[in-house]
């Protein structure tokens, strides 16, 4: 493969992507999140995905949770990256985590019904956020909600896994491995080895 240059490798990579995506029917947004050649960025695709593991109600809750965890807020988030499809795919293939997800979703709905008289997916965004905050932030933890916290940790972990391994997510953190370099890249702050006088934080 020596001497083929970056363009050929790029084309081979995209061809492999298309082949990989086509093995998994229904992964519309996932394939798009892979930056499929030909799809204009931002072009909507019909998003009818049939979950392999979750019930339709469970799935819409997973979708909502993933969007709350990594929102579309100026840059693309879990929705654009098809994270809920990824989570469904991973849970369908891993019997060891299925109970944790199903039980956690059940807990969430029972908790929502107790607090707000509606299932989680039917609550207002403010109420959903309030519930999640109590599961996410140490200062807001309440006794008796250990199962909810455990589930929140689980779905947050899988949301992060799904987002930051998508093209969109890797671009969000600007993963250096998306590029190749013609020479060894070196620190650009020659006169400040301790890095104490860097330009103000961009993020």
């Amino acid at each position: 493969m020596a001497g083929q240059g970056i363009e050929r490798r790029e084309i081979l990579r995209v061809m492999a992507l298309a082949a990989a995506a086509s093995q998994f029917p229904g992964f519309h947004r996932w394939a798009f999140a892979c930056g499929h050649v030909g799809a204009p960025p931002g072009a909507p695709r019909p998003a009818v995905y049939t979950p392999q593991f979750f019930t339709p109600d469970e799935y819409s809750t997973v979708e909502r949770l993933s969007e709350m965890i990594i929102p579309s807020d100026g840059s693309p988030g879990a929705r654009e990256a098809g994270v809920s499809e990824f989570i469904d795919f991973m849970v369908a293939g891993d019997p060891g985590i299925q109970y944790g997800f199903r039980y956690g979703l059940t807990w969430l709905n029972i908790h929502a019904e107790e607090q707000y008289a509606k299932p989680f997916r039917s609550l207002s965004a403010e109420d959903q956020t309030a519930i999640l905050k109590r599961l996410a932030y140490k200062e807001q933890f309440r006794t008796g909600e250990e199962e909810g916290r455990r589930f929140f940790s689980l779905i947050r972990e899988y949301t992060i896994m799904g987002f930051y391994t998508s093209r969109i997510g890797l671009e969000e953190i600007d993963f250096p491995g998306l590029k190749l370099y013609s020479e060894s890249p070196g620190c650009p702050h020659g006169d400040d080895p301790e890095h104490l006088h860097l330009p103000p934080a961009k993020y």
Partner: protein
Amino acid sequence: MSAPIYDVIVIGTGAGGGMAIKTLCEAGLKVCALNSGRRLDPAKDFRNHKQAYDMKYRGFGDPRKRDKYYHIENEYTAGLWEHGIAYTTAPGTEWEWPRCHAVGGKTNFWGRSAARMGDIDFKAASRDGFDVDWPVSYEEIAPYYTRVERMIGVASTVQHRPSNPDGDYLPPMKLRCLDYILQKGCEKVGVPYLPDRLAQLTVPHAGHPACHYCGNCTEGCDVGAFFSTPWFFLPLAEKTGNLELRTNCVVRSVLADPSGRAQGVAYVERGTKREVEVYGKAVVVAASCIESARILLNSKSRHFPNGLANSSGQVGRNLCDHLYGTTAYGYLPQLLGQPSFPDNVSDSQVVWMPRWQNLENPHAEKFIRGYSIYPTGGCGEFPWYQGRIEGFGSQLKRDIKRYYPTPASFYCQIPSLPSPTNYVDIDPDVKDIYGIPAVRVHFQWGPNELLMWEHAKAVCGQVLAASGGEFWGAAPNPNTPGYSLHETGTCRMGNDPKRFVTNRFGQTHDVPNLYVCDASVLLSCSDKTTTLSLLAFALRACDHLVENMRHRAA
């Protein structure tokens, strides 16, 4: 028609086997090389340019299979490492034995740290009274190190540290932001932080392209920008017309003739399970440290009831390994919120803190000898630090991005001392699927290496703090023995045939036409990796073998 008799049968195509194959073929000898696995095709087998989203499980691996992955294996290299290997461990021994049986072995995926050993290692026993000096001085082996560096290309700087001798180097890889920060911290603590000796091409070398810094070296290189037997040595050997490479041949034993000389090798063909014998005037065993010992121990005969070339009883003994573990990890607040940087280049193998302990006074520390540390960190493949960040929503997204350049961690490379408790022998009951008796590992970390482990954790914590970093933790225990893939010692070299398996040329004392060309001849691991040294000793062994054959033929 009688079977052909090759000049040399070489068992194994890893670093040592590859060096033997190239050297012997180029010297005009007819070589039959045996490899237990298949040839790889970089275009099909190496997925170093695949991104996470190209992989079915995003790189996390099939949940039904990922528990069986070796630590060095992942979804990108699934299918390239060997599984189902029959080996056993003695009670109380934990041993991970990742094996790549494909042509080239571990050289396809190695870490590329390639430092020379020095007299501080070769004459360690004279300094501290433990064990025995190597039968070779640095002055004798230095020209071989130079020849090897010129063949494979090693990038580094001249550092003027006799404990870490300088070699013939390509321009170094440049240091990253986190390197300069940690280097300052090391300066304050009084320990070195230097470019590693990296077997990675920063410039084109010997017909091989320079690296393009994709960061996935340990998944196999699709262009051959670092040394591996298939990219560097096999083409040169094949060019001579003297090589016959037989793949998928699992070696059972080395055959000895009635006078006790090696006469060939018995192997099993993987697919057909056909038993084959191949004959040669000399045999080179380079199946990797433990496997070479296994083959010799299984090569019993009337002359050698304890295994071929084992009159010393030392075949399989003196097994040493590098103790690996994360000695500290945390983050560097100076880099919070900064743009991302290519920290992942070379699979984040760029620098090291080479041994600084017991250099002047061999007993300055509570332990003897010494260890090195590899710092790593920065922008990586996945934000593993996410567990340290609370919350969800835009705040989480922003924090993951803010912390992305900041992680810093250290892992140690600590040599175990040769010990009567650490050795391999043949399991009396277990055989593999070809009926070849399995090897049994006996191994425990000894007091010296555990003292170094505690010392390393203390120092790395200090370095992180002195660098202005925040400490998150350290591994409670070292990694499982065998993790480092740097075993040595099972066919040690030495001048005394009663205590050593080979002489200082890797020629077995008992069988003059039997040579060993892998890390099993090295007396111990030292604080450096073993690959460059085993390549230098293998080259020297092959020069000696060629000379030996010419002398007999004359």
